[in-house]
């Protein structure tokens, strides 16, 4: 907001937990990239690695998703959430040991989950592929990291928090809430029959709308006014946007159940709540419309992420309708929506916030501006190509499935070219994320050298590179 250097003593004093979380996140991102590429190759060429019992397609897809969601998104979201809350408190993060230990155990939990899935403890629930025995560890370690954030929240300087802090503080609380319920209803005292699918759908929608999306929005809501130096537009409505997604998020569960052996009212609730989310998306876009001025790398990523977010709200609502789901349900469109959410919306917003936050946390400029620009180009290209190829595969598949006379071999053949495109997109994304990792670890290693501190010319210069 002012033209004084951004970096504060707060960032310097609380950098180790944040850097550990970010380093874990970026490492998992590369691991997830390798596994996603493997899964995409198996989808294109089923014989690939078929002789390996730990890497059936069902396993690789589940492992890749777990590494991406619980390795990358969770760690990055927690790092940015703690950073936002710490800056709010105006003093170094408290309970840093809790955050460090929590992060270590969280990563152990993710590793155990991946080994467990490879060994055959697949749950088959989307976004909840963690075997049941890992979940208590995940709950406690998430809670340990959250302690630091909650202390920063309760010790804040100003009584009235900003919208970014609502989202971050809420997300610290909602994952334990929904994960503990899902754990009991799916693993401790499993619900009967198809009720398990209802619980899993509720968890999937809740994990996205009230855990991952708030973490991503929190970062965006913090960075956009900082970079542009202007107040949020239509701030008064932000509270409505926040509350609406929190209340309605889990109610969209019926989107996954359309046409299946479930009560029809679940679907009706999903249609209504999916349409209510339009209001949420409009408020978010209005609040953050300055992101589309496109100054600097952070805003470019955030603008792209917000576009994906808005598109996701529309597509999600559309696929809740029975007429659409009859054609598009049970196809690759489901996967396309998931990638649009996890990669297009959440990951792009995290990228933007990371490019803004890391120089301030480390006090060092990004190692290479060229790598930053290459990452921007490759990441956006990869995400667009991945989602587009999956949508086109879904079109080919849906057309074939809609005609009873079309044999399955023909449907498989018609999706193959698009699945090959998805492989290429995953390869591009892997390369992009590798560049991010090189740049991040290079920048972090600069900390060991005694170097002049980065100069932040003015608040509007987003990346110091």
């Amino acid at each position, binding site marked *: 907001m002012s033209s004084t250097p951004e970096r504060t003593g707060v960032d310097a004093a609380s950098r180790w937990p944040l850097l550990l979380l970010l380093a874990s996140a970026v490492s998992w991102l590369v691991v997830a990239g390798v596994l996603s590429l493997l899964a995409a190759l198996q989808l294109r060429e089923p014989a690939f690695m078929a002789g390996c019992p730990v890497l059936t397609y069902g396993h690789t897809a589940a492992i890749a998703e777990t590494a991406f969601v619980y390795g990358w998104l969770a760690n990055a979201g927690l790092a940015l959430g703690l950073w936002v809350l710490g800056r709010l408190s105006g003093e170094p993060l408290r309970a840093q040991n809790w955050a460090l230990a929590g992060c270590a155990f969280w990563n152990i939990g993710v590793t155990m989950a991946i080994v467990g899935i490879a060994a055959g403890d697949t749950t088959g629930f989307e976004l909840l592929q963690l075997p049941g025995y890992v979940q208590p560890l995940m709950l406690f370690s998430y809670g340990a990291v959250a302690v630091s954030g909650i202390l920063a929240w309760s010790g804040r300087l100003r009584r009235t928090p900003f919208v970014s802090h609502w989202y971050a503080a809420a997300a610290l609380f909602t994952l334990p809430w929904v994960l503990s319920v899902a754990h009991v209803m799916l693993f401790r005292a499993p619900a009967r029959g*198809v009720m398990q699918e209802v619980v899993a759908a509720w968890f999937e929608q809740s994990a996205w709308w009230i855990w991952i999306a708030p973490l991503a929005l929190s970062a965006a809501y913090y960075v956009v006014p900082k970079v542009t130096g202007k107040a949020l537009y239509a701030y008064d409505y932000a509270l409505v946007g926040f509350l609406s997604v929190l209340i309605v998020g*889990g109610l969209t569960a019926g989107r996954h159940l359309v046409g*299946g*052996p479930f009560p029809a009212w679940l679907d009706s609730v999903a249609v209504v709540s999916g349409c209510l989310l339009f209001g949420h998306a409009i408020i978010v876009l209005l609040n953050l419309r300055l992101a589309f001025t496109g100054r600097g790398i952070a805003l470019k990523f955030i603008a792209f992420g917000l576009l994906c977010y808005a598109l996701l709200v529309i597509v999600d609502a559309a696929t809740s309708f029975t007429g659409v789901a009859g054609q598009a*349900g049970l196809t690759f469109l489901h996967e396309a929506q998931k990638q649009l959410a996890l990669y297009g919306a959440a990951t792009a917003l995290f990228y933007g916030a990371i490019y803004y936050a890391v120089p301030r946390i480390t006090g060092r400029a990004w190692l290479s501006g060229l790598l930053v620009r290459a990452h921007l180009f490759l990441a956006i290209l990869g995400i667009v190509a991945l989602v587009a190829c999956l949508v086109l595969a879904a079109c080919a598949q849906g057309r074939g499935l809609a005609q*009873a006379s079309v044999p*399955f071999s023909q449907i498989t053949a018609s999706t193959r070219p698009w699945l090959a495109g998805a492989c290429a997109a995953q390869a591009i994304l892997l390369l992009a994320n590798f560049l991010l990792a090189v740049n991040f670890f290079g920048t972090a290693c600069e900390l060991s050298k005694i170097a002049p501190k980065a100069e932040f010319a003015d608040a509007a210069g987003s990346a110091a590179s």
Partner: protein
Amino acid sequence: MKSNFAFFIGVFVAVLISWGMLMGANVQLGSLAPYFDETDGTTHPEWMPGIAAQGQLVYRDLGCAACHTQQVRRDGMGPDLARGWGDRQSVARDYIYQPAPQLGNNRIGPDLTNLGDRKPSAPDSDDLLNLLYSGADGMPSYRFLFETRRIGAGAQPSDKALSLVGALRPPQGYEIVPTLEAESLVGYLVNLRTTYTYPEARPYVVPKGQNPEVKPAAAAAAGGAK
């Protein structure tokens, strides 16, 4: 928003609302009882045989549900019935005895709800074992579910040995036999059948040209039988 306590209570209550939807569904689905057919004194669905129950766990552990669904959708939601995947739509009661229902969300391969009663012809155990061993167009082979064994001197080949042809045939003096995992998986697959038609699986179809709001008395009685 100024009070910490009020904030977290607010978040808790907001999530509680969607959890209420879950509880509503649980009241409806959790109390589903098996259906007793008074005309022939049988109860449906039936429990799976032991080997099939084991096989369902193999099915889940291998992640088969990543490519195969187990839910037949009604007419108007795609031609599931015309493809011969089932004689009727799947209903919640079909799954009440399954410890881990595998409904799936992507039809990369065919639906398997009623595989054991597939029309026009259902595959038998040998067909499925051969398919698992050799793979198919679009489906990987699962050779790690089989072992290649030497046939001892003067010994009979196992009666479980696969009868393979062409390039897949094992060398002279060897045989390929399914492991317990493969046998239970196939035992599960051949037992997948939803042949009994529950009242709720026969939705009342409004005849063309008739006002759906005004049901004839007879149709209302048939449609309302629960």
